[in-house]
């Protein structure tokens, strides 16, 4: 009886493992091909796409030794950090008011921001481009940072508002009795308490900014401002027949995202599931 059960169980777990491994292979193999391909030349790529490189070709070192990649990495970082600071700061302030004050027009404003969830960049990009051109923000990182922050507001406000609502009114009353102003309470009590939620929305904002393509594509005609996604795409156009070299560039541009994912996986998943729970 138990032997039967345990054997059935073992079979089941083997099947489960096989399915997971099969799907895992579909995910891992293209990346593995890319990582190894970056160490090959094109001849090796066609004769031996999955095997070990022989000889090892220094594509990666070439790219790392050239300032362009580092420059794009820096631009991506600058834009991601700035737009995250702006979006989290302004969303936290708005979410505080939406969560803890009743006032006429509140629901209207909340709904307005919620509808903003459905505004893709693609809808606004043309007028945005014209607007940025007329105020001279083309080829200026602010031309990407500010619109990104604006488009990130809805989701950030919604997540933070949910969190701010969970903080008991007693905490606020105590702070007020201790002579805290609204701003003092927000700054000294609420934000420190909301650290996990702030981490979550920051991770979401960083990932979104890091992967954004359409906006930097139209805002930066000057190559020195390009972010990694724009740079990767341009590099592919430039070296279309040098597959190995492009692979090396793509893999290098994946590394920061994967590294960040390894560190912030929990916040990222928490943010995604939290925002869907509504």
């Amino acid at each position, binding site marked *: 009886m138990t032997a039967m059960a345990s054997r059935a169980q073992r079979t089941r777990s083997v099947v489960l493992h096989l399915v997971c491994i099969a799907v895992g292979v579909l995910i891992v193999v293209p990346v593995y091909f890319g990582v190894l391909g970056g160490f090959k030349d094109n001849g090796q790529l066609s004769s031996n796409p999955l095997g070990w490189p022989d000889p090892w070709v220094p594509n990666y070192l070439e790219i790392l030794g050239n300032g362009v990649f580092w420059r794009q990495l820096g631009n991506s970082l600058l834009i991601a950090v700035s737009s995250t600071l702006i979006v989290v700061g302004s969303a936290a302030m708005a979410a505080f008011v939406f969560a803890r004050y009743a006032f006429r027009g509140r629901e209207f404003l909340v709904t307005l921001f919620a509808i903003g969830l459905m505004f893709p960049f*693609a809808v606004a990009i043309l007028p945005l481009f014209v607007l940025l051109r007329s105020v001279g923000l083309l080829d200026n990182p602010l031309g990407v940072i*500010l619109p990104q922050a604006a488009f990130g507001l809805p989701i950030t406000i919604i997540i933070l508002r949910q969190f701010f609502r969970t903080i008991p009114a007693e905490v606020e009353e105590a702070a007020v009795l201790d002579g805290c102003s609204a701003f003092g309470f927000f700054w000294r009590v609420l934000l420190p308490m909301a650290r996990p939620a702030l981490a979550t929305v920051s991770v979401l904002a960083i990932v979104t900014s890091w992967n954004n393509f359409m906006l930097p594509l139209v805002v930066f005609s000057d190559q020195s401002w390009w972010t990694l996604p724009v740079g990767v795409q341009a590099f592919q156009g430039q070296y279309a027949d040098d597959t190995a070299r492009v692979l090396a560039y793509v893999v290098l541009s994946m590394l920061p995202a994967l590294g960040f994912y390894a560190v912030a996986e929990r916040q990222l998943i928490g943010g995604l599931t939290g925002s869907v729970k509504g």
Partner: protein
Amino acid sequence: MTRPSTVSDDRRGDTATDPPASGPGTARKRDRQPRPGRGTVLAVFLAPALALFVLLVLAPIVVAGYASFFKWNGFGLPENFIGLDNYTRAFGDPTFRGDLWRGLVLVVLSLGVQLPVALALAMLLNQPLRGRAVYRLILFAPYVLSEVTTAVLFTLVFSPNRGLGEGVARWLGADAGTIFADPDTVLYAVFMVVSWKYFGLYMMLFLAARQGIPKELHEAAVTDGASAWQAFRHVTLPLLGPTIRISIFLSVIGTIQLFDMVWVLTGGGPIHSSETLAVTMYQFGFRRFEVGYASAISITMFLLSLVFALFYQRIVLRRDTAGAITTQGGQR
């Protein structure tokens, strides 16, 4: 308009965490003793978010709506009013009509293939399994890669006679070098790459929802003599309903707005056979400077999303909490 999220009509059990706007909560107390400068506090705290949102999100959309009634190259002010001509032109244009059709195909594929697979994997990963965390980490990893990097990687994977696809295809007796070059297969090839990147997201959402279901329910059903399948079908699946419905929503909205992936993989080609609304819009707006016409395409995209969202909220999400709906990735 969507209904305010504090309405608590036919909602179940989550009202406790959701104080009504003017219930016996802090709000009313505060209303009784208005503190000095409350208006100022509101104004100061709301100003930055509102300014950003109105100037950079709402205004551009309004402008796009306005511009879509003009023949305009994007320079100076739109002056040449042509009424609905941009829209009639779009709906008469085979490429635009094809975009709508291809969007529909992608939606159907996504709902028919991607989401069920993600759901099945989530159920598998919910079983006690050694190394589950590792599988989860790997399957979700593509989600953090940008659409551009993913697209470039796959372009190379399937590059003719130099890629990985070639070997696999030879083994399958097909010709991989051409799946992105053949008008008949390109859309499926694009869908494959989109799924590669996004199915982990849906799997993760389903997994989180599944883990939120109390074990007892499933066990009770099995104790009562239900088979594993029946227990899943009649207990687990209905409880996953809200997450499934939100995932469908995200998937549809995301598909309507698909740009990066297609632009990098194929540029919409060959001969428009993988083009999407966003790609057509970009071509006309930033390549041909027909900004008025491109705005009409933008607005169509927006209206499609909005009408779908409202309809969906009315018909489908009514039973769930009227809560947040994310676009991620969507950009996302």
